């Protein structure tokens, strides 16, 4: 037994050799990763910016440039990049048209759909106090049924001027944005569901409502701050 152990010890590699090899491998791999990161950094950043811009421009067609803000939990907002993002802050985008005037605000929202959370981006216009467009950020709804929210013309027509006025105290929406059964939309704050895709349609309504309830009371009182493009 003892002899076996000695034999094993004699066969095994000295620790120094193992450390040397691991060190060598780590050095080579570190170099490769840093190289890859440096090479692709600009392209990745560009891609991400283009993707965000495209999503915002889709919901706010008048927009030409965007700035990223956070709404602070205590009220008010600040531009991203100035220090740490505080906890509980909600991100949104201010979009400006060609003349540098505020074209609208885009924000994300999410709600549980049929298969998974449906994440959407919606555009809000301060002049009419309404939602003027939606786009899907991510979803896993059944193709052919749930993903009709991207293509169904009647459904998308809900979001040309969806009412999202605040109440008198500016603390919450005057009327909750709500998805109603297909063919029974009567008020401008209601969304006419797609027949056959009611659950996904409801998720869109809930996502807009939840996000707007949190965000708009903070943004609307401080709109002046956004209007100047900095």
């Amino acid at each position, binding site marked *: 037994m003892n002899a076996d152990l000695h034999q094993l010890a004699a066969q095994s590699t000295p620790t120094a050799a193992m450390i040397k090899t691991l060190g060598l491998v780590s050095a080579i791999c570190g170099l490769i990763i840093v190289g890859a990161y440096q090479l692709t950094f600009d392209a990745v950043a560009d891609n991400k910016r283009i993707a965000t811009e495209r999503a915002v421009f889709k919901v706010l067609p008048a927009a030409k440039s965007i700035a990223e803000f956070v709404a602070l939990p205590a009220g008010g907002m600040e531009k991203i990049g100035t220090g740490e993002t505080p906890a509980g802050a909600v991100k949104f985008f201010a979009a400006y048209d060609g003349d540098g005037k505020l074209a609208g605000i885009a924000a994300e929202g999410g709600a549980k759909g*049929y298969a998974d959370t449906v994440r959407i981006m919606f555009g809000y216009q301060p002049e009419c106090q309404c939602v003027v467009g939606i786009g899907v950020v991510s979803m896993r709804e*059944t193709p*052919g*049924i749930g993903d009709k929210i991207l293509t169904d013309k009647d459904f998308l027509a809900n979001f040309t001027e969806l009412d999202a006025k605040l109440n008198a105290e500016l603390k919450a929406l005057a009327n909750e944005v709500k998805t109603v*059964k297909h063919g029974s939309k009567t008020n401008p704050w209601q969304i006419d569901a797609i*027949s*056959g895709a*009611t*659950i996904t349609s409801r998720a869109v309504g809930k996502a807009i409502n939840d996000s707007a309830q949190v965000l708009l009371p903070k943004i609307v009182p401080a709109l002046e701050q956004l209007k100047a493009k900095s």
Partner: protein
Amino acid sequence: MSASIEIRSAPHVASPRTVEKIMRHVVWSLLPICAFFVAQYGISALASIAVITGACLLTERVFVRTGTQAGSLNDYSAVITGLLLALTLPPGFPLWMGAVAGFVAIALGKALFGGIGFNVFNPALVGRAFVQAAFPTAIATYTPSFVAGRFSEFIPSSLAWPFMLPPDTATWLQSKHLDALAGATPLAKWKFDGVMAGAGELLTSLSGNMAVGPSPLLILLCGIYLAARRYMDWRIPAAILGSAGLTAWILFGLDPVRYPNPFFMLFSGGLILGAVYMATDMATSPVTPKGMWVYGALIGLLTVVIRYYSGLPEGVMYAILIANAASPLIERITQPTPFGKSAMAGMGRRRKGATYPLNPGYISREDASAVTPKKRFLPNKPHKAADKPVKKP
């Protein structure tokens, strides 16, 4: 019957009841249901039944010919699969999709497992589950029954070109002066719009343009005939309807506003058809009497739970498929105690090995002149050699 000499081992029980005979009776009992289905929906339903059954028979023929599956064409089992599949699909289901469903039902649901008697899941439901997942829009598009001119023209979606989208039935319904809601099944109407259908309409659909499936009343009558002739075990449908009704009744008692009444639960959708014809498929349901009750109760409970709490309006199909998968387990835990061994005496030394008790109500596989594949039951013990100490070199 064939006149060839058969040589086989004991028991030499001469039973007049063969698989072929049972299947033939089931087909006969299905014919009135199919006839009423055709009366409800016209030539589209007739074409649908013919095409789907044809697809099933053709697929069966291919697999029997190539020798990859047991059984023969004239045991009628593929006819039953085809008829049941057609009855569970909307009457205006595009015919090419029906053919796909028939092919999948036999190929995937039956032939891959080895043919008649070896399938784990009900073949008709396997076919339906496939097209439900593949064509969710088409399978939810029902048309109302007793539409004027149903014997002279097809429902437009029936005649869609293969691989092409079926035309929208809503415009066709408008030309018949029916609103688009008439195309929803009672269950879908209840689930998505909160509209309840009346009892009489559910049972026969004679009174109006309802988008119901085959008539539950007729299915029950045919089921009673089958059970009375002992071609089907009455326990399974009784257990399913009992447990579904009980669950629905308890929920209805808790909150009558939110949940529909038990009568609506039992007679809407495909529950009766599923309970009488699908769940009782001999190959996929337990053979022990106690097991049948457990199996049926499981289906009834699952159906109600899926209907109430999932995104789908109908849950019978998945309930039966899940219970099919569970039936070997149910069989195992509901083995009857052999005569002479009381529960006390059996304590501590449970019987092992036997899985199929001799049940006179059922014919054995040998009578079907089916080829039984060799089964190897591996002993569930660790290998002896592993216990031995490893020899030192």
